[in-house]
């Protein structure tokens, strides 16, 4: 097992597309790091740079203490699980698992010693002589995983390995992966576009956008203290509500006045550290749907909103509200299922100040220095 370092790695493709810009990332020995972002953000490229399937335009890649920048994938001793599984269709499950070991000229005994336990762990013992075409999706996924496990490599790389599974199997396999990581204590790098997968699996999560690393932090810190508006909007579901406006001094504290909406509220001075320059280009206020308070009696100190849609999802319900504009989903709240809300009724909205995130509008950077807790 080994740590992996991406040292100012950039990758530009011949067609001019820049998939990675000065990527600086250190993955500790035994860490489960998730790379997440929308499609085209460069997360797969980052993984392929570690794998050696792409060579960086500049920068270095280190695995263990070794500089592997110029080494082909064969010499890097890392294993990869592909989104398509990429099982060898003409080989049986056993042959698929053993392929990497055979290439390394291991003896038959050694191969068996490694393949059998892995097949056992993954529940593949009964299908060892089948070809991939005769396996279920879940089994194929396990074979792909097994092929990486038997190798006992320095690190495991996963490229959206769960995206071809149905919802139930995906959640099961996700838990299994987490257990596997705990058990092996291996360095794992995992790429996904699904923020929920990223949050549940990662020791730390790296959010990428347009080839740029936005933030790398433990999942809950990403959730509580996103460094910019992009991360704030990407992590968490339903996504954070954003309102454009301006901050003004108001007595000892601040007042946020919405530009296109009636959102207007006083914020305590502690929210922004003293002396923090007032942003000129405007401010974006963000609040997560579960933090929004709705008062069906409409008598609270907040401002009014019209309930446009209520989506019950069991223990909670997702409420879409219109503020004074036309957008029927200008504000989304997640409230307990017990709260009785009529569609088309008017409710009072309150934003608890401690749950508020403030971003500079022009570049989306976070304004608060302290976590909003």
């Amino acid at each position, binding site marked *: 097992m080994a740590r992996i370092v991406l040292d100012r790695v950039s990758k530009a493709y011949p067609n001019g597309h820049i998939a990675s810009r000065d990527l600086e990332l250190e993955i500790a020995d035994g860490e489960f790091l998730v790379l997440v972002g929308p499609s085209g953000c460069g997360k797969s490229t980052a993984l392929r740079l570690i794998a050696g*399937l792409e060579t960086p335009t500049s920068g270095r890649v280190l695995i263990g203490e070794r500089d592997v920048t110029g080494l082909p994938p064969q010499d890097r001793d890392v*294993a990869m699980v*592909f989104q*398509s599984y*990429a*099982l*060898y269709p003409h080989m049986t499950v056993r042959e698929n698992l053993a392929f990497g070991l055979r290439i390394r000229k291991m003896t038959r005994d050694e191969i068996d010693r490694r393949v059998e336990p892995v097949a056992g762990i993954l529940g593949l013992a009964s299908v060892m002589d089948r070809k*991939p075409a005769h396996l279920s999706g879940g089994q194929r996924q396990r074979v792909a995983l097994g092929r990486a496990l038997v190798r006992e490599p320095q690190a495991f790389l996963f490229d959206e390995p769960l995206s071809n599974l149905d919802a139930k199997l995906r959640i099961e396999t996700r838990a299994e992966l987490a257990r596997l990581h705990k058990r092996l204590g291996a360095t794992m790098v995992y790429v996904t576009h699904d923020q929920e997968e990223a949050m549940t699996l990662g020791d730390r999560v790296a959010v990428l956008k347009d080839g740029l690393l936005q933030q790398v932090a433990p999942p809950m810190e990403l959730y509580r203290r996103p460094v910019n508006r992009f991360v704030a909007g990407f992590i968490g579901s339903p996504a954070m509500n954003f309102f454009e406006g301006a901050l003004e001094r108001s007595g000892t504290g601040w007042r946020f006045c919405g530009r296109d909406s009636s959102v207007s509220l006083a914020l305590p001075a502690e929210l922004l550290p003293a002396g923090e320059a007032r942003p000129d280009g405007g401010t974006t206020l963000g609040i997560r749907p579960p933090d929004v308070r709705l008062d069906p009696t409409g008598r609270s100190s907040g401002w009014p909103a019209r309930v446009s849609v209520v989506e019950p999802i069991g223990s909670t319900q997702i409420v879409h509200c219109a503020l004074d504009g036309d957008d029927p989903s200008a504000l989304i709240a997640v409230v307990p299922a017990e709260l009785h809300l009529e569609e088309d009724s008017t409710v009072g909205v309150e934003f608890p100040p401690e749950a508020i995130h403030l971003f500079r509008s022009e570049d989306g950077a976070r304004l608060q220095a302290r976590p909003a807790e």
Partner: protein
Amino acid sequence: MSSRTRPLAVGALGLLVAAIAFPFYWAVVASLTPEATLFRAPSLWPREIIFDHYRALFDERAFWLPIRNSLIVAGLTTIFCVAVGSFAAYAIARLRFRGQSAILGFILAVTMFPQISIVSPLYLMLRALGLINTFPGLILPYMTFAMPLTVWLLVGFFRQLPRDLEEAAFMDGASRWQTFVRVMLPLATPGLATTGILTFIYCWNEFLFALSFTLGPERQTVPVAIALFRGQYQVPWGEILAAAVIATAPVAALVLAFQRRIVQGLTAGAVKG
């Protein structure tokens, strides 16, 4: 397909099969009919079956000699073409290098020359090399048209194979060569089989080069031998047709034996992880 269009489709299919198979059937019937009755009122059924033409073919004309020659020439050409062509095709399909499309275009351009236009230069070259009337003297020129065909077909097959498979093999530690031999080639077998058969058929049927570059019966291939059956005063139609039937047999057998593979090859994309 709805129940109303079905009989129509079956009828069309039957007509097509009849149109393709009838000439062959006609040849078989004629080859079994005595020379004397061949030009009387034709009959769909052989009125009297004789094997004289086939016997004459082997007893008097030593027809096994051109068959052997054809097998050697077509077989070796096919083996060379598929072996060398698969490397070339893999390289073109998968490696990134300068002038890739130019090379592929050039390979195609080679097949555009009418055969007749290169017979004379080829003859001179082969004579200079002392290869006239030898097997290599046929195999080498055959490669000029068989190789482009092989490469073109195989490039298509290799391109269809998912890139992930190759990368998975790299990650498993396999070198390019190991990946090619142990992963890509086995997956391309349907393609190799299809290509091989098509190449074989082309070479088996080739006439112009075979006529031009051989001198005597010891190196003549089947089509040439059949064409030369024609005597000064008569055309032995019975024997010619018997020979034609025999010449068709191995090709038909090949296609039937590999039918499944060919269909697989033509409908490829069946290669899924």
